[in-house]
């Protein structure tokens, strides 16, 4: 077994006194791809946001260790610099800021944190153009303002591009499949697959099973009402597709995983 990248123990979190996550336990090791599935409102996106450090949510109990360090003690930008990446469900637009400038600023912030020299314009461009091939992205988008006027598919590709440039240790994909047609879905999934590697852990948060046809997970966890109620192998995703979430609800987290 490889070293754990992410260890979540009894995580409780919510917003304004309303508890959303009600005790999550999860371990993700280097080289693994885990999927968090669950119905709307189960807390999937909350989990993704809490891991990334969104201030809107308050952690009320539990701990999260990332590469052995206390993740919850770090500011969002520190987590990013330490190698935690969140691909947003709804990528944000920033008017007047070129995508290339944004990405270069981000990359150099991360590099500085890691004690590396910042890349100059030429080196950066070479790197980003190389990574753009991963997601089959139009180079002209680099000169447009961040996500401004991007189509749904372009926004999601832009997220994966950023992931490819920033080379995280832990990548969390929050509903990356939402709003994608089948072609875009395949391209995005291909990009993610090429990012799989022995040193990297990937957490795929999704409502539907279809993304998992392309990004095949090592483990699948079912989140219902803030708790993981089932865990299993990739077959679990298919079972969910057939029986629906209702079929697994109510079973305790400790129950034996189906089909393992």
């Amino acid at each position, binding site marked *: 077994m490889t070293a754990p990248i992410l260890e979540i123990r009894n995580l409780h979190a919510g917003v304004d006194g309303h508890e959303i996550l009600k005790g999550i336990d999860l371990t993700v090791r280097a080289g693994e791809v885990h999927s968090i599935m669950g119905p709307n409102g189960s807390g999937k996106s909350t989990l993704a946001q809490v891991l*990334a*450090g*969104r*201030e*809107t949510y308050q952690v009320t109990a539990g701990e999260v260790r990332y590469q052995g360090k206390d993740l919850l003690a770090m*500011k*969002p*930008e520190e*987590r*990013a*610099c330490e190698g935690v*990446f*969140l691909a*947003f469900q709804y*990528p*944000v637009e*920033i*008017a*007047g*800021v070129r995508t290339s*400038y*944004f*990405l270069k*600023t*981000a*990359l150099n*912030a*991360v590099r500085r*944190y890691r004690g590396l020299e910042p890349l100059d314009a030429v080196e950066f461009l070479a790197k980003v153009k190389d990574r753009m091939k991963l997601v089959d992205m139009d180079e002209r988008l680099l000169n447009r*303002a961040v996500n401004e006027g991007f189509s749904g598919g372009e926004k999601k590709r832009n997220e994966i591009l*950023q992931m490819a440039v*920033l080379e995280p240790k832990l990548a969390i994909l929050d509903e990356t499949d939402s709003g994608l047609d089948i072609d875009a879905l395949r391209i995005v999934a291909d990009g993610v697959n090429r990012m799989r590697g022995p040193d990297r852990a990937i957490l795929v948060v999704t409502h539907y099973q279809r993304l998992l046809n392309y990004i095949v997970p090592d483990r699948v966890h079912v989140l219902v009402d803030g708790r993981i109620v089932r865990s299993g192998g990739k077959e679990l995703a298919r079972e969910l597709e057939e029986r629906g979430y209702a079929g697994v609800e109510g079973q305790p987290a400790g129950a034996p995983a189906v089909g393992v």
Partner: protein
Amino acid sequence: MTATTNTIAELANREYKYGFVTDIEEERVRPGLDEDVIRQISAKKNEPGWLLEFRLKAYRHWRTMAEPTWPNVHYPPIDYQTIVYYSAPKQRSRPGSLEQVDPKLLETYTKLGIPLREQELLAGVAVDAVFDSVSVATTFKEKLRELGILFCSFSEAVQNHPDLVREYLGSVVPYSDNFFATLNSAVFSDGSFVYVPPGVRCPMELSTYFRINAAATGQFERTLIIADKGAYVSYLEGCTAPMRDEHQLHAAVVELIAHDDATIKYSTIQNWYPGDRDGKGGIYNFVTKRGKCQGRRSHIAWTQVETGSAITWKYPSCILIGDHSVGEFYSVATTMNHQQADTGTKMIHIGRHTRSTIVSKGISGGFGQNTYRGMVKILPGADQARNFTQCDSLLIGEKCGAHTFPYIEVRNRTARMEHEASTSKIGEDQLFYCKQRGIGAEDAVSMIVNGFCRQVLRELPMEFAVEAQKLLAIQLEGSVG
């Protein structure tokens, strides 16, 4: 400290050779304003009779005027009889060395990369020499002289080119224009004068050029720029470093005249002392700037980045007289802490096929209050006139405010007007997105603000744009928790 003192002493000696040292004591007039004081000012400057008359006429008119109360700014009443209207009253309150200067101010200078000796001057340290890079300035002037371009201080122009000054002074901003312009007309100290002869394209950005020169322009600045037929000139006014200055009131007047096919670009970075975090102190910047597109196809463009002053009150305007003339106004105004700004423009369309563009970006943080006030007026003869106006406001935090007062008056049915306005907040979402990519909060805010201002910043000459960005970044520090 000793090293600094030596350098200054050296400079003082060197400059003395060129006769740059003035005896401050002799230059002073008593505080307060009456005709006698104005006569003294005029006499000290050795001015011709017509100019004294101009001043006196303005003063007599000023006495009949009331200070305007319509701007959306608030300040305690100004006692005009306690102001010293001529030259060097600053000496008494000057700090003796940099050690006595507000460390915040020095920190900013260091971040902007300003050399130590410049820092001393900007901070108002009592240095008995007005030092400047004489040799550079001289080379610069030689080149301009070859082209027939006149670029000198306003006072020099009065002595050396009185006919030009007499012809144009007050031709755009009449002495009776408004309370502060009229006061300026009575007591103006100095400023810049530019004349570009027909067909000449000024090959360099003209500017007060050295921060040091800018520091010496004084409380009641007067600037006059004339571009003759087919001429082109780009003028930069400004000081990117905040200047320590105990003058509360700055009332400048700038007049631009563009003849047929002439272009004048006037760029400003204003970063006067804004007062401390609690809103104590700071400059009241009450300025009248106006350009006259006199000739056919003439073109005047104002670009301003207003980050300083406790209160900014200015409306750089264009009077579009010549057919097919073009007026432009690009503005970034930021108000942080307790700063207030009421700024915008007036575009008066008189000639046919006249066009104007207004792009205003207001940014408020802290308790800052930012007002855009603009007027677009299409007169009956202005057939096919066009205006495009865009004013956007960005809010940082909960306690600041943005206000927009657009006035549009159209008296010609062929006019085409477009107006866009938006108000947005730097969103939690945007900030988090940046942070999640490793970009710290302050860098993120600065990046978002720069993006917001890009349309305006790209109108600035390259070097100026870079300084403006740095300046915005410094000003925004600490604006997010």
